[in-house]
């Protein structure tokens, strides 16, 4: 597959890495439901998002930091969500909708950097921006609608969580790969 100006030719090793990221993300996404409910008990809707939402966004930064190719972020998050849907978890098919949207937003970050940077900064940003579609879809699909100031705090919480876990996932990949 060729895209104008970008090399998106995936080798067998890249595809194997993508499979691993999808499986690892899927397993973590499935576990995150427990973390989310624990977080909701401790810190309510905002605390739950800070504690857990970033874990649901790690597919994109993990895949992009590991594979360093265009579309890897989108595929990592989407395939992770697909695995989570297959396992299956509480969210069911909606997980895939979340995965596709979050993957697209994270991919946008790497596109903005013209696929030249796959470091901790881009991983942090990729994790953070995935919070936007997640909060929007929460409102749309699960009717999690609160007053405007609470929605703003929830969005900030989700983005901070995404940033933290995006950064951590890039650290984990770097420490494991080298």
């Amino acid at each position: 597959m060729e895209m104008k100006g970008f090399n998106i030719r995936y080798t067998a090793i890249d595809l194997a890495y993508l499979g691993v990221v999808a499986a690892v993300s899927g397993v973590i996404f499935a576990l995150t439901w427990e973390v989310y409910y624990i977080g909701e008990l401790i810190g309510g809707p905002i605390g739950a998002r800070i504690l857990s939402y970033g874990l649901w966004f790690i597919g994109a930064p993990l895949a992009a930091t590991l594979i360093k190719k265009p579309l890897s972020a989108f595929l990592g998050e989407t395939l992770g969500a697909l695995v989570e849907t297959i396992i299956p978890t509480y969210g069911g098919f909606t997980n895939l909708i979340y995965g596709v949207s979050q993957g697209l937003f994270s991919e946008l970050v790497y596109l903005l950097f013209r696929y030249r940077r796959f470091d901790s900064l881009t991983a942090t940003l990729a994790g953070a921006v995935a919070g936007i579609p997640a909060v929007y879809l929460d409102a749309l699909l699960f009717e999690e609608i609160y007053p405007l100031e609470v929605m703003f705090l929830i969005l900030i919480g989700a983005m901070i969580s995404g940033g933290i876990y995006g950064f951590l996932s890039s650290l984990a990949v770097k420490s494991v790969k080298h």
Partner: protein
Amino acid sequence: MLNILSRDSEEIRHIRVMRGKSRYPLTPSSFLSYLRPLLSLSIERARWIGIAAEMRGFGRRKRSVRKGRFDILDMLLIVLFLIQIIIIVAISLGLA
């Protein structure tokens, strides 16, 4: 692969409990201590799977596009799908 990873994940969580840590990674540091071994095991496996596939010529394979045939069975399937959609729309609008 998913079964192997689920087993790895369960083992890591079991070891975490044995070491007096939480079963679920609730903090960033516990997340790292959970993710690193999981990634380390999986990436090593994936690398060798990828190398084995490349050695067998995966990267050099010819990519051919097969032209699809559209026969009577495909047509029948599409008609059945359309009927299904019409019935669903009719039921949801209260026409049936």
